[in-house]
Structures are given as structure tokens and as C-alpha cells.
């Protein structure tokens, strides 16, 4: 083999080594970090814990728990007495809805996450109670939502409640 050919071989080896190094470097630096599973797990945990705590909270309606009030979504006209003077309020719109909004805003929206709360009577197909923190057109941005396992309220188990937690915008 001539000397010039040897030199070219040397250069080729050097170029090859540099190319291999670059390939390794780029493969490490451009590799996307897989966080989707972790995010889904965190969001589902938040959704499940929040919903679990939410249903136990006392309300103005004779210290009834929120779960009992939500069962009232079967009957949207249900009222309750909130003080000794006998003032009556609509269980769903006056008591449950604002309370749920306060709770979800402070625990989920405060973390820069969106939520969708739905309660629905088992026998009905229309949504009885729907509270969401999402703004704007629903198709305007892509969201990753993690839905909590649907929970049936106790003790009657006639209303299905679910809470979805989504990435904000």
C-alpha cells in the first residue's frame, strides 16, 4: 500500500471516530425524557385524593357531608335549611356548587392544573352537575387529562362522581 493511501486511511479512521462520537453525543442530548407516566400517576393521585376528601367535607346544610348533597343532584330542586332562622337554600346551586369550586380552585387550580368535576345520576345520561376551571374554546388547546376512578357516593350509590385533572393550557 502506498504512503498516500495509508494517510487517507488514517484520515478516514479519524473522521469515522469523530462521527461515532457525534452520534453518541446527539443521541444522549436529544433523547426526550419520558415523564408522561409520572405525570399521569401524579395527576390521578391528586384527582383521587381530592375527590375522596371533597366528598367528606361538612356543609352548611345541617353539617351534611358534601357527598350527601351531591346525591341531591338527582333532584335539582332539593333545598335545605342552613340556620336556626329557617333560611332555605338550594342544595345544588347555592351550597354544593360554590363550595366545590372553592375547594378545587384552592387545591388543583393553585397548582396550575385545570379540572373538570362531574356528577351524574346513574339512571340519567345527562350531566347533572358540571364544574370546570377550563377557559376558552375546548378545542383551542391540547390537554392531557387524567380522570379519577369514578366514585359512587355513599350510602345510596345512585350518583356517579368523577374528577379530571388536566395540564393547564
Amino acid at each position, binding site marked *: 500500500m502506498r504512503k498516500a493511501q495509508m494517510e487517507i486511511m488514517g484520515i478516514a479512521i*479519524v473522521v469515522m*471516530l*469523530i462521527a461515532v*462520537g457525534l452520534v453518541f*453525543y446527539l443521541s*444522549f442530548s436529544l433523547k426526550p425524557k419520558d415523564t408522561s407516566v409520572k405525570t399521569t400517576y401524579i395527576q390521578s393521585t*391528586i384527582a383521587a*385524593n*381530592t375527590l*375522596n*376528601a*371533597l366528598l*367528606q*367535607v*361538612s*356543609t*352548611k346544610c345541617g*353539617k351534611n*357531608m358534601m357527598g350527601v348533597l351531591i346525591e341531591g343532584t338527582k333532584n335539582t330542586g332539593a333545598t335545605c335549611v342552613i340556620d336556626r332562622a329557617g333560611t332555605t337554600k338550594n342544595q345544588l346551586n347555592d351550597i354544593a356548587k*360554590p*363550595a366545590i369550586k*372553592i*375547594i378545587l380552585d*384552592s*387545591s388543583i387550580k*393553585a*397548582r396550575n392544573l385545570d379540572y373538570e368535576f362531574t356528577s351524574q345520576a346513574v339512571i340519567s345520561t345527562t350531566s347533572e352537575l358540571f364544574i370546570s376551571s377550563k377557559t376558552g374554546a375546548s378545542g383551542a388547546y391540547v390537554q392531557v387529562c387524567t380522570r379519577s376512578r369514578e366514585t359512587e357516593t355513599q350510602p345510596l350509590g345512585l350518583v356517579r362522581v368523577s374528577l379530571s385533572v388536566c395540564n393547564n393550557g
Partner: protein
Amino acid sequence: MRKTRMHQPSEARRGGRAVSKAIHLCGIPLSTRSRPLFLCSDRVSARRKRAQLQIGESIAVLFIFMLMVGFGLFFYFRASLAGYNEKLASDQSMDIVRITLAAQSLPELQCTSRLSIRNCVDLQAMQALADKIYGPNQDANIITSEDKELRDFYYNDIFLTSRIEAIITYDGMAGSAIDTGKYTADGLGITFEASPPPAAYPTKPFIIYDKTILDSLHPNTYVEIVPVVFNNPTRMDHGASRGELYFGLLRITYTAPRI
């Protein structure tokens, strides 16, 4: 040069060949007998130049090789350092999960089992524990040495260098604002200070445990928030097994040392 010129005629006289080029070596006059192997001719200097070039080439090749080895080592150490940091962060994020689970299920904070509510914290129990391991009436400066020992030798193993706080966000009774006075009026002993807007929460956090790292400038900080139900047993109706139940959060801040 002057000397050379002086010697040239004598060489000619002795019958020797008059050599104008090769009889002097780098300006030193030489006789034909003692002619050296290396002479200062154009050929010799060309050879020398080529040798120098070859040496230079070898040095350049060595330099590039060392440079490549250096780059390789640099990237290798950088990659291994990044891997180590990733492992450290993963271990520390596991620590915060472990601390959160421990705080969530700490028997000292749990509501009575008769309630059978998950993630339920008893306000009276919480206050008693905070008095013991943080300081009476939320004052960390007046903790007794005995309680400090208890905190350092028992709870430190569980909660490490973290801070555990309780925040009530909805007390079910007074709309969005929290009735901060009623806890003292109930004889519960807890004081929740109101936190006016634009604060994220309506009350200031109630500290249960605090051993966060303060002397480190940039510790790795992890925060975990768990929604819980707070049971106020002082507002229990006659014959009932539960008092008022409030919605709140346990906020766990873990400050891990940066290595």
C-alpha cells in the same frame, strides 16, 4: 568567509581540488581528507527540512490524538456526572414520596377509626403533636430540650430535613373565607392566621414539623401537597361520631442537601 578565502590558494598550491562548495561546513573551512558526512549543501538542508516536517507532523498527530482523548474523557465525566445527578434527584424524589406517605398515615395525626375516612387528620391530635415537636403555640424558640430530643432522635428519622404544614382551605361554614377565630373559641387551641389575598391560601400554614436546611444556600427543594380532611372534634354533635369536617392540605417541603 574571510578565512576561507585566505585558505583557498594554499589548497590549490598543494595540488588538491579546489572545492568551492563542500570544503566548508557551516562557514568552518575543512580539508578534503577530513570531509564530514553531513555537509551544508542544498540537498542536506532539504533533507533536514523534510525531517523537521515529519517531526512536526508526528507532533501534530500526537496533539490531535491527545485532544481527542481529552474530549472523550471530558464527555465521559460529564455524562457520568449527569447520571449521578439524575440518580441523586431520583433518590431525593423518592424521599419526598416516602415522607409524604409517612405524614399522611402518621398515627399521631389520624382521626379515630370510627370515622373510617381516608386521609383524615384530627385537629386536636395535630395541635398536640405540633406543640411537642415544633414548639408550643407555633413558637419554635420555646421548645423544651426534652421535646427537641424527641424530635431529633425519633421524628428526624421519619421526616428528615423537611417541613410539614397544615392548611385549611374550606371550613364548610363561612363561604370562601375561613373563620379563623372559631378554633380558639372552640377551645381547640389552634390559631390559624388569616392570609389576605393575593396569597394562594386563605390561612397561613400551621407548622407541625420543621427541620429544613437553612444554612445551605441552594438546597434541592421538593414540595408535595396532599388533600386531606380535617376533623374538628370539639364541634361534635351529641351522639355523633364525627365533628365538623374541613377540606385542607398537608404541604410537605423537603430540602435535600446538594452534594
